[in-house]
């Protein structure tokens, strides 16, 4: 009787080990190229729009880019959902859960820092040109976004960590360099957002798409 119980425990432990290893192994590979391309297009369009509409008050800038972030997240979710339905897979799979959990702390920190900056900036009535007080904010967002990607990169294809490092190193480098004397705060702030959240996403998405195609052709 005792032997039966031990064998049952042994089998259950084996199954638990197998389950843990399978979960650890299952990398998040879903819809990465379309998500990157979508976010890149949104980032570039938003940067052009923000600059064109001259959204230059601190509060306007923070609200505008928070809205862009919401659009990007919602669009990404729809792309993930579409692929999950197409492949008859659950949306909230263990890899998706782990990637989301890895993303959350840096993104929440970015949101909180943005909120604090929004509160501190005040309504600034009539001031549509001065972003110099929060010129650091886009770069902090860039660095935190890089941290989020690097953390999620443990559960995604290896290139994601390199992509995250691109944001971290680029953001820190530009923070250290400061805003060039010839640049205007409005163009600089939207330019940073467009460069990192637009161009980098787009470039990586195109790279992923081309390597996926090559992989399929091979």
């Amino acid at each position: 009787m005792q032997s039966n119980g031990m064998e049952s425990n042994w089998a259950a432990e084996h199954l638990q080990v197998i389950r843990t290893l399978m979960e650890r192994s299952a990398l998040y590979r879903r819809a990465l190229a379309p998500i990157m391309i979508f976010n890149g297009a949104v980032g570039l369009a938003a940067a052009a729009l923000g600059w064109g509409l001259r959204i230059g008050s601190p509060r306007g800038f923070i609200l505008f880019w928070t809205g862009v972030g919401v659009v990007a997240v919602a669009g990404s979710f729809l792309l993930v959902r579409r692929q999950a339905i197409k492949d008859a897979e659950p949306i909230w799979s263990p890899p998706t859960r782990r990637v989301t959990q890895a993303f959350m702390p840096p993104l929440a920190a970015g949101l909180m820092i943005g909120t604090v900056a929004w509160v501190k900036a005040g309504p600034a009535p009539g001031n549509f040109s001065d972003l110099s007080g929060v010129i650091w904010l886009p770069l902090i967002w860039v660095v935190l976004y890089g941290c989020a990607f690097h953390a999620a990169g443990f559960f995604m294809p290896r290139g994601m960590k390199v992509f995250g490092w691109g944001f971290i190193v680029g953001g820190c480098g530009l923070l250290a360099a400061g805003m060039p004397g010839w640049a205007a705060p409005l163009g600089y702030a939207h330019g940073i957002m467009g460069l990192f959240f637009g161009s980098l996403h787009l470039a990586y998405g195109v790279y992923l798409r081309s390597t996926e195609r090559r992989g399929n052709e091979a």
Partner: protein
Amino acid sequence: MNPEPFLQIDRVIHEKGRLAIMSMLAASPELSFTELRDTLGMTDGNITTHIRTLQEAGYLSVTKSFQNNRPLTTCALTPAGKRAFTHYINLLERIIQQNRPK
């Protein structure tokens, strides 16, 4: 107690290191040698031996290619490997079922 499930256990898969490799590959279309080694914390020699055993049993296919001018070895389960792994899981479940108090 029915000893039949124990007698059916595949000794190739049942070894701890090989079971870990099979489990990881069961959840991923393919994994590189490095990914397997780093995740499982095995030495190069140890993992090579296990991979060779699984390959000889027909459970695993190994592909050698180049990525960025560096050699890349990737492993994947063969259809026979997937069947053997599923069978192994089913046996474990049967062992648990038959020892469950009625």
